[in-house]
């Protein structure tokens, strides 16, 4: 008999990929877009965003990183739910876990979809 | 009164190497098996064994074979071994090592992937399969993990108070749960004792708190015979400081790597203790000893230093130095490797020792002297068993491992103990399963006996008690250390027997505070009966062996006696009194006798 397929490795794979992408690239983007440009030290190279390579890069970076964040937000939130419903047994916890998971991973999926939509328009 | 009752075909008492191996075997033969152990599963004393397991695998040296292993073991045992046991043992040893390996045990390997073997005292060839200095732990883990899918039931933290008897037959065991203090009756067709040693009879021991001679005492009370109880091995180099680690082993390897013994003034004293028997074989001056290098074959001008004399000689020398007021501050001698080898060499060759002293004594052995002294380590004697099945003289009662006697004779070789557990653990398990299979009905339980055991076990809670069990135990240990220790004499042994009578009287008057749940004081009180019983067996046997041989040294009889070489001491319960006799040992058959005259490289330790 086959067990139902677990999606845990998929989420974790996206988390790990996103973690690495975010670790390597997010700080510089924050520094540039969030600080250097608004403070007037540099200008946003707007025309670059039209290049398909840049679009692919940004869509990949943003959606992967969002999955990373979703995974990291999920666990504490899940355990926080555990604390709120402290007396609940383990199986009930899994039931709480599900909506929390749908919320955060769903959020990441919406984010990733919009990133791809924006880039492909 | 009704007690919780648990039934199995075979009950195994003890979950060390021998007990688990017996359980695996009995279970494999279709018996329902229950293992009862005092501490947690996987924490047994086997875990502390370091060196390795001896077997003539012939990996390291193709010249090795079971006959050579047989020869070394009998010579090491000073001829007193039961040769049938030794034969089975040496012939089956390689299979037991390979079997353990097949079950997943990790062994150090040769470059071509075979099991690596190391040299050890008394073994002519490199014969010890090992993994670093944690061989026992790996063995125990492997057996535990392998046993997991065998359907064995384990009853942890459950101490057996006495064996249940049906007429003259073993019928199970009466025990208490340590956590709740409530009693439990194990009913079984066969019982295997695998309880290990009795080091806790002595103040200074390498053994842990579990080693209180339970199995020997249970067997004795059930009517079984104990053999060779006078032979207790004292390891010359145990730690003496700090108190928490007093007695813990400092491996022989330290001296093998060049370590030397010194008195409180830094003088090397072993030159004064070379026995006549070894005269001419060891260096006689410090200059000569300095020319000797570990690992380099010795020439006529560089004989090995006397620090490498056999265990009994070194142990006695340290004791004599301490008695003469030349000991170290905490009553031992100095062991110095710091001045004999470089820091890098020590860390490479003795990593375990370096860390042991660093972690437990915060002493850097590459810079400072260690303080060492003799520590009681192993009992060669034990329950007398049949070599084939490990059955005792009590039907349905089996014994294997350190609790059983006969294999090691007067002195055990390093590395033979772990193999002993595997070879005879397996045989005991098979013997018990077979015996149980042949029995149609579960033996009965005698309610009077149960009531008696229970009353005795609960006596320490009675108001009338006056003695503190811990103090009685300390006095017992002091007595054994002094009167029945490394070096013995008639007067002291006789005196010791007298003191034992007093201690026995005190032991029935102990009083403990609190209740039965996890009460260490109560556990002491119950262990006390076993400790006193085995102490009596040791002392009585020692009193009547008027010679020095192996682990038994008599000041008043420093030589070995050819007459006493022919006999084993047997102790049994006769109408409530401990009786001893010398029974004639079965002589070796001609072909095996011949093996002993093979040329040899060095006198076994």
């Amino acid at each position, binding site marked *: 008999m086959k067990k139902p397929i677990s999606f845990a490795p998929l989420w974790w794979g996206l988390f790990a990929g996103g973690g690495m992408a975010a670790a390597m690239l997010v700080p510089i983007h924050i520094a540039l877009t969030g600080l250097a440009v608004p403070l007037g030290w*540099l200008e946003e190279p707007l025309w670059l965003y039209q290049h398909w390579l840049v679009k692919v890069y940004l869509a990949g970076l943003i959606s992967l990183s969002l999955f990373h964040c979703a995974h990291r937000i999920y666990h504490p939130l899940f355990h*926080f739910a555990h604390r709120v419903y*402290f007396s609940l047994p383990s199986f009930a916890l899994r039931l709480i876990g599900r909506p929390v998971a749908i919320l955060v991973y769903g959020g990441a999926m919406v984010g990733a979809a919009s990133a791809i939509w924006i880039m492909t328009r | 009164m009704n007690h919780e009752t648990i039934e199995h075909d075979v009950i195994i008492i003890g979950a060390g190497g021998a007990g688990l191996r017996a359980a695996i075997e009995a279970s494999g033969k279709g018996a329902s098996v229950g293992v009862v152990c005092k501490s947690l599963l996987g924490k047994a004393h086997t875990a502390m064994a370091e060196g390795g397991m001896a077997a003539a695998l012939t990996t390291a040296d193709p010249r090795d074979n079971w006959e050579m292993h047989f020869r070394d073991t009998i010579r090491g045992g000073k001829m007193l071994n039961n040769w049938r046991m030794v034969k089975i043992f040496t012939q089956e040893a390689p299979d037991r090592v390979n079997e353990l390996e097949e079950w997943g045990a990790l062994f150090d390997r040769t470059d071509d992937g075979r099991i690596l073997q190391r040299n050890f005292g008394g073994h002519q060839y490199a014969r010890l399969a090992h993994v670093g200095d944690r061989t026992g732990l790996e063995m125990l883990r492997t057996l535990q993990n392998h046993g997991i899918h065998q359907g064995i039931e384990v009853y942890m933290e459950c101490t057996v108070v006495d064996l249940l008897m049906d007429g003259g037959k073993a019928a199970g065991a009466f025990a208490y749960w340590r956590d709740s203090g409530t009693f439990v009756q194990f009913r079984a067709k066969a019982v295997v004792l695998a309880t290990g040693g009795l080091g806790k009879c002595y103040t200074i021991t390498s053994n842990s708190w579990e080693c209180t001679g339970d199995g020997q005492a249970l067997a004795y009370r059930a009517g079984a015979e104990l053999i060779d109880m006078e032979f207790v091995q004292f390891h010359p180099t145990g730690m003496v400081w700090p108190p928490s680690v007093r007695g813990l082993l400092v491996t022989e390897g330290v001296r093998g790597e060049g370590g030397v013994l010194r008195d409180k003034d830094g003088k090397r004293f072993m030159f004064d203790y070379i026995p006549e028997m070894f005269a001419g074989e060891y260096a006689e001056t410090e200059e000569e000893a300095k020319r000797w290098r570990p690992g380099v074959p010795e020439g006529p001008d560089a004989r090995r230093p006397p620090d490498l004399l056999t265990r009994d000689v070194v142990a006695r020398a340290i004791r004599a130095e301490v008695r003469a007021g030349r000991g170290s501050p905490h009553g031992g001698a100095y062991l110095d490797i710091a001045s004999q080898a470089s820091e890098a060499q020590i860390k490479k060759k003795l990593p375990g020792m370096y860390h042991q002293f660093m972690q437990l004594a915060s002493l850097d052995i590459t810079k400072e002297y260690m303080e060492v002294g003799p520590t009681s380590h192993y009992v060669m004697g034990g329950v007398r068993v049949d070599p084939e099945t490990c059955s005792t003289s009590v039907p349905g009662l089996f014994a294997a491992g350190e609790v059983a006697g006969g294999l090691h004779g007067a002195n055990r070789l390093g590395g033979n103990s772990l193999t002993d557990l595997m070879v005879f653990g397996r045989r005991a398990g098979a013997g018990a399963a077979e015996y149980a299979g042949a029995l149609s009905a579960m033996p009965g339980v005698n309610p009077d006996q149960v009531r008696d055991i229970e009353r005795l076990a609960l006596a320490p809670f009675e108001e009338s008690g006056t003695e503190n069990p811990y103090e009685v135990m300390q006095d017992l240990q002091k007595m054994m250390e002094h009167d029945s220790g490394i070096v013995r004499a008639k007067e002291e042994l006789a005196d010791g027997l007298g003191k034992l009578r007093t201690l026995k009287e005190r032991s029935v008057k102990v009083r403990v505070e609190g209740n039965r749940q996890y009460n260490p004081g109560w556990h002491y009180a119950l262990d006390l009966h076993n400790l006193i019983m085995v102490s009596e067996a040791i002392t009585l046997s020692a009193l009547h062996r008027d010679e020095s041989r192996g682990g038994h040294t008599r000041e008043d009889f420093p030589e070995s006696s050819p007459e006493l070489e022919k006999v084993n001491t047997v102790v049994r319960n006769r109408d409530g009194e401990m009786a001893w006799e010398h029974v004639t040992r079965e002589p070796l058959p001609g072909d095996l006798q011949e093996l002993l005259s093979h040329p040899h490289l060095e006198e076994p330790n």
Partner: protein
Amino acid sequence: MEKEMIVNRPDNSKMYHPHMPTAWWFRKWSYFLFMLRELTSVFIAVFLVVYLFQIYHITQGADAYWEIAGQFRSGGWIAFHGVALIFAIYHSLSWFKTAAVILTPRVGGWMVPPWMVVALHIAAWLAASAAVLMLYVLI
């Protein structure tokens, strides 16, 4: 079907069952650092959404971008991005440290020490950051 070892278990009802306090991550400095590490993802996520919002406007044309660009010059946003940057750097460093636990490459028989794995990651990180910076400075 495998048989299994059965171990006796003490009476559950007589035991004391401890509970993790809700604020368990304040109990130990290492737990607190762990929580801080997890918290970085909130800041990163907010930044990503904001950035996506900006990119959306950029792709709508320069005018659309200039319409919204001004508000990010406010003190609030600058402060947010400052904090987010600190968190992002913390994320990077902690991530490289954990990567060194997972990636233990061997070259021949020699195991590359963890500090070197961390160092290689940091080097790659600096190189990637420099490359992105180039796009802003040179082009």
